[in-house]
């Protein structure tokens, strides 16, 4: 089973110079846990912010998210993999790199994201399909 089947194609972007509060609003409205951060310059200059970064790095410390920019807490670079990568290879990569999501890229474009919950779903489906896995 390949990543393509389980990736989420709901990818949302935020500019690096926007306030973190703008990013939070986007995440709440779209019900998503991470945003791709676009840094100025060439098109492939991406980072990521996650709900975890926001909660632990900002909100839990009592910092006002309107006072900081997205770029201040974004992680760079993002981890990109091919759409044909097998689920278990993606899972190994996430474990080795200690990250909760990898991005599926095609050239400079990000076409999907695979999170740990997607890997769990895929594994459960593979168990259920048994010999019918394609």
């Amino acid at each position, binding site marked *: 089973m390949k990543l393509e*089947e389980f990736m*989420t*194609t*709901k990818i949302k972007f935020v500019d690096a110079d926007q306030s973190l509060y703008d990013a939070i609003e986007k995440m709440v409205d779209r*019900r998503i846990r991470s945003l791709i951060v676009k840094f100025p310059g060439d098109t492939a200059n991406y980072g990521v912010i996650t709900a975890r970064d926001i909660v632990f790095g900002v909100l839990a410390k009592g910092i006002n998210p309107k006072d900081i920019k997205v770029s201040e807490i974004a992680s760079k670079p993002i981890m990109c993999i091919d759409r044909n990568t097998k689920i278990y290879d993606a899972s190994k990569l996430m474990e080795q790199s200690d990250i909760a999501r990898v991005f599926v890229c095609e050239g400079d474009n990000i076409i999907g994201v695979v999170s740990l919950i997607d890997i769990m*779903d895929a594994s*459960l*489906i593979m*168990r*259920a*399909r*048994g010999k*019918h896995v394609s």
Partner: protein
Amino acid sequence: MFLEKILSQGKKEQSVIESINRHIRLLCTACETFSTALKNRDANLMRNIIELEREGDFVRRNIISDIYQGAFLPYLRPELCRFVEIVDRVFDLLEDTALQYLDTEIPEQVKDECARVSFLNVRICEMLLITFDAMVKGDDLREKTLAIRIYEKKIDDIKFDLIRDIRKLPITNFWEGKILADFVSGLTTISDIIEDASDHLQIINVSMRA
């Protein structure tokens, strides 16, 4: 296994089981045809859904007739018929959705997500077939029905985004908007009904064990 014994005790029962398997296989073919037609924008292929739905109707009528001619213990008959009727509802909805596709132009902005849902519909349908076969063998269905719920949840997630996205599209007349909304609704409801079918298989499975 106990269930295998119940389900394969006579020729009539065996014939019904084979027909139900064929009915679900036919549905998988219809879902796959729909998905390929949508991806390749092939209106002729999409028209094949109408034929597949008719064939599905034919198989359904035979199954119900065989059941009420004496296959299976009386308490099992309505449950099996109900399952077949639920699968038939998927055929009907798939046909309606195919007709809506033929009647409208799917906007570029939502084309990829619609194709993704139609692909997941193929997968969830295959899973229903695997679940049915597992029930016949007397296997535990818990893992199979969970897989169906996972697929359904994935489609549900895409559905909310699709609805949000189509709201932003400029619509020039009422019917254009209505057909597009009905198409998206049909496409994303197929998995709900397949989930109902799988829940019903679980009920049959439990009632046979009781």
